[in-house]
């Protein structure tokens, strides 16, 4: 019964643990976007790539937060993709910053697997993916 299951799933994505997840994502998106744009605006010459990456990360967190909060079928897909991008980002940039520190002279949100941010950037997409896939499974059953 696809007609009734769609609104149920839409509600579940932003209720329960999803409620807290949206709050954490929202705050983190704000922090990363603000920091990235501030650094780009004031110290662009020092490390444009690193600061642009921080801003990009912030925007991805923002998209994920909105996707989780809106919680329709399409937004769930959007949230899923942005969480996957975050996961890939923190893993790739984290690894790169450990093995080739010269590539990222300035810290980004994802450097050292997010160690500058209490490893929240590493934990958050994992929780996000777990929650979205859980709701997805409940929806399908």
């Amino acid at each position, binding site marked *: 019964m696809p007609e009734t299951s769609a609104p149920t799933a839409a509600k579940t994505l932003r*209720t329960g643990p999803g*409620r807290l997840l949206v709050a954490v994502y*929202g*705050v983190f998106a704000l922090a990363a976007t603000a920091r990235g744009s*501030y650094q780009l605006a*004031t110290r662009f010459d020092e490390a444009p790539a690193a600061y642009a990456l921080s801003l990009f990360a912030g925007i991805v967190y923002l998209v994920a937060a909105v996707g989780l909060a809106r919680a329709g079928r399409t937004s769930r897909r959007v949230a899923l993709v942005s969480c996957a991008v975050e996961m890939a980002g923190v893993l790739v940039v984290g690894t790169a910053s450990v093995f080739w520190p010269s590539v990222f002279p300035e810290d980004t949100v994802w450097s050292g697997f997010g160690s500058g941010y209490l490893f929240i950037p590493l934990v958050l997409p994992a929780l996000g993916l777990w929650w979205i896939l859980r709701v997805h499974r409940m929806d399908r059953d």
Partner: protein
Amino acid sequence: MVDWLTMTIQMVSLAMAGWCLVSTFRDRPMVVPHLVGMGVLWLLVLGQVGASVAAMVGGDRPAETAMYVSYLATVALLPPACAVWGFMERSKWGPAVIAFACLILPVLFVRLEQLWSPVA
């Protein structure tokens, strides 16, 4: 910035966080007293924001004004936004949202104080 107000906000915020964590672990939803507590906390925060804006208008500005103002806007919006978002949820996850907000609010105030009067 008014020092004692910052201290009070941090204490009240941590107390709210503790209370909400207890509610979460006892599997209770958010109730009106939680909301009143958040209202009191918000008033204190707005008082500090007002005092800081008044000081800045008076010419007493931190070195990184733009950064400071963005933090100020965040602390002013965080309590009401999270209170509404948490109150909409009728399960234990409502107080969990408030607890999260009340745990990061003191940290934001530490940053505000650092920006206002840098130690180094």
